[in-house]
């Protein structure tokens, strides 16, 4: 039975203590990630306050359908990840690796759609990178697109890391390198990170696409 339990590492005296410490560590890390995006949200709110009309005008040019589709994709993947955690706790490896792999694939789909969206915006003259043709109606609109690009690409970067982590765990569980339920805490860690990436998007989506 003992291989079902996580290995007890150096500074801990009980597994319960170790698990609690691991989870507290994860939550603190996520809190710091939230503060990172929190700074960005503060920027968005200030900018919105400074240029209310231009922001609404700019937001109306977003591809709401793509954004909404991406929201659905992430919500679905989060649900799958949650199922994976449940399965991991009860020690079933197959559904765990399956759900994690599917979520990673959904993440890839998100990035694909996002790339398509950037491409369309580029063609519509909405992408504010230097050297690209743009025609903004106002400085406020330009600012909106600047923030949009920074926020969504930072989110995409986090998503990419999340995909790598989920993919890795799917493979580790599949190949029995991580044994369940011993590795459930580790799986939960990866899952919690994915939920965070999802939650950040759930806030970015209304703030950027539905600002009216």
């Amino acid at each position, binding site marked *: 039975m003992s291989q079902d339990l996580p290995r007890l590492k*150096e*500074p801990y005296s009980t597994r319960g203590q170790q698990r609690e410490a691991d989870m507290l*560590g994860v939550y603190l890390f996520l809190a*710091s990630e939230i*503060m990172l*995006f929190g*700074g960005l949200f*503060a920027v968005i709110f200030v900018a919105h306050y*400074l240029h209310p009309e231009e922001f609404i005008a700019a937001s109306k040019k977003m591809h709401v359908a793509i954004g909404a589709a991406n929201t659905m994709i992430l919500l679905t993947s989060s649900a799958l990840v949650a199922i994976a955690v449940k399965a991991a706790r009860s020690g079933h490896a197959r559904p765990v690796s399956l759900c994690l792999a599917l979520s990673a694939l959904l993440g890839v789909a998100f990035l694909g759609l996002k790339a398509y969206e950037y491409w369309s915006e580029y063609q519509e003259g909405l992408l504010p990178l230097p050297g690209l043709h743009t025609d903004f109606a106002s400085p406020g609109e330009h600012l909106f697109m600047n923030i949009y690009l920074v926020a969504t690409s*930072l989110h995409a970067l986090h998503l990419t890391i999340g995909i790598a982590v989920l993919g890795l765990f799917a493979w580790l569980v599949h190949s029995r390198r991580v044994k369940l339920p011993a590795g459930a805490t580790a799986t939960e860690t990866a899952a919690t990170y994915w939920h965070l990436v999802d939650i950040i998007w759930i806030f970015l989506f209304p703030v950027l696409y539905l600002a009216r």
Partner: protein
Amino acid sequence: MTANPPSDPNAGHTIRSWLLTTDHKRIAVLYLVSVTFFFLIGGAAAGLVRADLLTPEGDLLTNEGYNRAFTLHGVIMVWFFLIPSIPNVFGNFLIPLMIGARDLAFPRLNLLSWYVYVLGGLFTLIVLLVGGVDTGWTFYTPLSSMFSNGHVVLVAAAVFIVGFSSILTGLNFIVTIHKLRAPGMGWGRMPLFVWSHYATSIILVLATPVLSITLVLIAAERLFGLGIFDPASGGDPLLFQHLFWFYSHPAVYIMVLPALGVISELVAAAARKPVFGYSFVAGSSIAIAIIGFFVWGHHMFVSGQSMYASAVFSFLSLAVAVPSGIKVYNWTATLYKGNILLDPPFLFAMSFIGLFVVGGLTGIALAMLSIDVHVHDTYFVVAHFHYIMVGGTISAYFGALHFWWPKMFGRMYPLTWGRITAATIFFGFNLTFFPQFILGFLGMPRRYHVYAPEFQTLHVLSSAGSTLLGFAYLLPFVYLGYSLVAGKRASANPWGARGLEWTVPSPPPKHNFVEIPTVTGRPYDYPIDKEDSR
């Protein structure tokens, strides 16, 4: 207990055993070496600045060279010395020992955080080699985002990376303090040093990311023209200052809170009395950390922010003085009728209290809108923050070094030399920075390298003081280095102090405690039995 197998990265004295160690005590020593290295570089830059200011024309450096010298001085001292110094050296070494744990919660993360620090340091050194930056440590836009011809993006990357190291350390400390306290060590029995590191870690984890995003935005603006702070594209340069100071005011408490923790330990050990009002001193750390998040606007009184905002920030800033005052009063009360030993750690603690009070009182002066409008961006501000951060934090750092050195390395150093150093630092420090209060009050702006001739006398005094100060900072290299090779062996408790760290041998064995201790009493349970003391 079995002996460590030879492949154990924590065993032996090979380079490999050091670079792969997960022992918090060894990682502390790695940090000691690396922060000392950056202290020397930052100090050299300061020497250059002070030498240039000897003459009103600033003959030594070009305008550009001067800007680069003080910027590198600030960046290196703030992010590579003051912020990591006490937490990463002494926090790392002492927190597990003080709470009766075998190590930090995440030993490998701890090592990673050192490597991240080194990587950030390498970036800074590259910046130094390719010519530096001229924006000042505050990176104000639009200078940093549009006009500077220094290596802003590289330096932003360096600070971003080292910030990540801070976050990891803070996270590790919080989890350790929550989950690894020995049986019986309730929150009310934790040493004050641990309390202050707990408060510091909260700031590290929650404020540093805001700095990270700010640096990302500057880099995006410089590299890709994504002008979030640029009025031409609807952005707002003031927004930068809000974001920057939202981190950087709490950051000044990152630098000073660990110092306050050190002083509480030194004062109790020197007076051989329990700390007066233990729970107030502990609580005031948390109060400082929390209020510290709401005062950033006092750096922006003359930036054009609304008058109402300024008034609120002024009021909140005055509120910070309350918990800081509590500490000073309680240390004084602790010393009252104490059986004081004039050892080096105590002298450094006294020096800290003196400088901290001057720095804090001038902080209150600056928090008054009417005074700040007069002295903003003058040498008065420079003197204020040097009193607190350099006078205060570095005194505490040296105090900690002299107090825990025997514990860390198992050797004593000649105490008289320590006393001489403490006195010279105190004197050199005041000679360097007191004239700067006057300079500022007379209207000498900061960051200028040519100045009106009537300011020269005060500048020369300041430069003379800095020479003495620099010399005094180097003294410990001599006698602490000497102690490593020829010092006499230190006992487990050379100062006759309380605390779990003094119950284990000096230096402590790899696993700290043969058996995890059970704590039964309150901390600072002085007086101590006769036979324990010297």
